[in-house]
């Protein structure tokens, strides 16, 4: 037994180790391929064949890989040397290349370690704090790296003294812009891939269409204009960037920036700016990137806070409904047990008296006392009903569409997480109804919640709840359709009865209370199965108020 366990244990360790090793090699080789491919593209713009590219997304890949693990260092060094020799065809000797790239790669290790271990940056988060840390650390680290690389080349005699400052600047700006863009995009990819279910919304189509079209227009302007104006037209790129940052948050802006940088690089190389001109654009690009990423991170953070707030509100609504039902149960049990005990006691006493052949007097006495106690019980019940009834309705004109949208906002996150989408439809403006907003929202929350539960039972992530608000013949009507499995036949009869539930954690009060509220509004609530699958719940409220006559 022990031996077997040991054998199993070692087999497991072995396979796990194999997996780790395979992952290491796969990641490293993928990096090498991507790195060299990027170099083939970016080599079109380099400074004096010194291996200094004017835009360096490849070094962004390096930093991202080293943040994942410093043990990838050999791949990083190999990539840098191979790129210099095979792609850039640097003028200096192989030894100088190896020396310079070794020093530089160590510099990237420094940036990665500083980001990950000192500044606690993680590419798997996109908090504003992380983004700010990255935006500060990368340009600073790039200056050091630039000094290291240019210093080694200068000492080796490959870099003339009069070009030193120029090379330093080219290296720095190309590196800073490229690393920021790639690390940000990496963060975006991680955050998208970590989501269990990525939802592409209608909004997204619009957002990205606007971004792509406006960016293309700007690039067409830049490309078409005389090169003296190109620099001024560059500012137009702020518009699509700010748009996508506002609309799609950090993930959107990070991906958009990488695309913008790549597109700009293509445009610029096509136009054929000088290296010095290109640097000026790159400084603008740095400002654009920083602005866009801070904006995007801020928007995302606010969106997260909002979402959390909505979740908490939804939770609160559910808790309070539950708490109310629980408290009601306690109250009933407490208030009714006393008179119930007394009635039962008098009844048993009366029976025993009759059985033992007592005269009618004491029996009548006992029974009338039981009767009085029953009367008292009725009063207790009446009092509780007054207490918990929605009797104190405060009707005011309210829009059922707004109420439906509010409930959708409360439920949609949780529903999406369970593979259910909620849509609200209204064909034309619906007149306001007289209603108690809290009561009506409670009803809609209950019905929509039930519909989501039903649709979630499909478990195929294609659950759908459609809330349709219409008006017809003097009635405002809310239809809630789900495409769940439908109402079980044994539940169909008693759906609106109290304490009937098919849910493991339900009290079976939701629909009962809903019907009561709707009836107090002079309305109706009913349901029907819909073909081919699902259930429709219908709430009808009189547009002429609770006492009005509908046509």
């Amino acid at each position, binding site marked *: 037994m022990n031996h077997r366990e040991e054998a199993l244990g070692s087999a497991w360790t072995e396979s796990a180790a194999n997996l780790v090793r395979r992952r290491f090699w796969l990641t490293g080789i993928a990096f090498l391929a991507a790195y060299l491919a990027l170099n083939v593209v970016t080599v079109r713009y380099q400074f004096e064949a010194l291996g200094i590219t004017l835009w360096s997304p490849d070094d962004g890949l390096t930093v991202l890989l080293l943040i994942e693990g410093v043990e990838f260092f050999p791949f990083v060094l190999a990539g840098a040397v191979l790129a210099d020799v095979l792609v850039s065809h640097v003028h200096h000797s192989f030894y100088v290349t190896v020396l310079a790239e070794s020093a530089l790669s160590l510099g990237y290790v420094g940036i990665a370690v500083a980001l990950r271990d000192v500044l606690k940056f993680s590419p798997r988060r996109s908090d504003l704090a992380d983004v700010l840390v990255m935006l500060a650390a990368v340009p600073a680290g790039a200056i050091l790296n630039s000094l290291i690389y240019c210093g080694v080349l200068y000492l080796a005699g490959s870099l003339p003294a009069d070009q030193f400052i120029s090379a330093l600047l080219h290296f720095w700006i190309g590196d800073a812009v490229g690393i920021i863009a790639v690390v940000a995009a990496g963060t975006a990819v991680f955050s998208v891939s970590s989501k269990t279910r990525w939802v592409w919304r209608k909004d997204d189509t619009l957002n990205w269409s606007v971004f792509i079209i406006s960016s293309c227009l700007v690039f067409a302007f830049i490309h078409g204009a005389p090169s003296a104006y190109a620099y001024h037209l560059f500012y137009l790129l702020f518009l699509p960037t700010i748009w996508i940052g506002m609309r799609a948050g950090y993930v959107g802006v990070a991906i958009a920036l990488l695309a913008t940088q790549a597109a700009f690089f293509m445009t610029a190389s096509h136009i054929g700016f000088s290296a010095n001109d290109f640097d000026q654009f790159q400084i603008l690009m740095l400002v654009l990137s920083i602005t866009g990423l801070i904006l995007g991170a801020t928007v995302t953070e606010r969106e997260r806070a909002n979402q959390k707030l909505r979740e908490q509100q939804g939770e609160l609504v559910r808790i309070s409904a539950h708490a109310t039902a629980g408290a009601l149960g306690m109250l009933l049990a407490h208030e009714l*047990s006393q008179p119930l005990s007394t009635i039962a006691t008098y009844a*048993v006493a009366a029976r025993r008296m009759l059985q033992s052949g007592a005269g009618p007097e004491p029996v009548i006495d006992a029974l009338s006392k039981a009767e009085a106690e029953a009367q008292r019980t009725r009063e207790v019940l009446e009092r509780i009903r007054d207490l918990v009834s929605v009797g104190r309705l405060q009707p005011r004109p309210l829009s059922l569409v707004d109420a439906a949208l509010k409930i959708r906002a409360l439920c949609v996150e949780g529903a999406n997480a369970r593979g259910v989408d909620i849509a609200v439809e209204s064909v034309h403006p619906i007149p306001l109804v007289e209603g108690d907003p809290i009561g009506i929202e409670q009803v809609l929350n209950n019905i929509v919640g039930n519909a989501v539960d039903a649709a979630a039972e499909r478990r195929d992530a294609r659950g759908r709840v459609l809330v349709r608000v219409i008006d017809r013949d003097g009635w405002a009507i809310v239809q809630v359709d789900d495409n769940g499995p439908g109402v079980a036949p044994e539940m169909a009869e008693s759906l609106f009865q109290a304490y009937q539930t098919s849910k493991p954690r339900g009290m079976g009060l939701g629909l009962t209370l809903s019907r009561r509220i709707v009836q107090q509004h002079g309305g109706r609530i009913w349901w029907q199965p819909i073909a081919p699958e699902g259930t429709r719940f219908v709430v009808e409220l009189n547009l002429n108020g609770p006492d009005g006559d509908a046509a």
Partner: protein
Amino acid sequence: MPHRRHVAIVDDEASVRESLALLLSTAQIESRTFASAEDYLDSVPLDESSCVILDNQLPGLSGIGLLKRIAAAADCDTAVILISGHGDVPTAVSAMKCGAFHFVEKPLDPEALLLTVEEALGRTEQVRDRQTQVQEFRGRRALLTQREHEVFALLVQGLPTKLIARQLGITPRTTEHHRAAVMHKMQARTISHLVRMALSFDPAAGET
């Protein structure tokens, strides 16, 4: 001997007190009712053995509080039936820990409560009978002289007359005499009857 059966009812609800009293009366059980634990303590001495039906939710001293007082009183074998709200497990546990005879949940089942009361009264009866018997046994034993007492102790250990005589250093004849006196005073029909009495009312006697 026939004994009048008595129950105390402590509940702040007049209707509960009245209905329970009426129910008990149909089983020929007399009852006294009290509206609070304090009322009960004022009028019933703690060492009086009886049966109490006690509501836990009382104004002032709670049912459990009164139960603790009753249980703490020395030489008391009052059977307490505690009534409490449905599902009140903590109260049920502490009631049983404090030595309640039974724990009853509201709403009450009158027939079941009646059975419980009968049971409690039966137990009180037994205890009371036994107490009376112990009292009588002790009274009789007090009548023995010093020498008769020594003979009684050895008899109960199962020694024959000759051995008792040798142990006490007296003649068998005198021993016979003392033995007859012991049997007479203790109202024992046979030696085995005497031994049984000694064992059940004074277990220490058989061992010394």
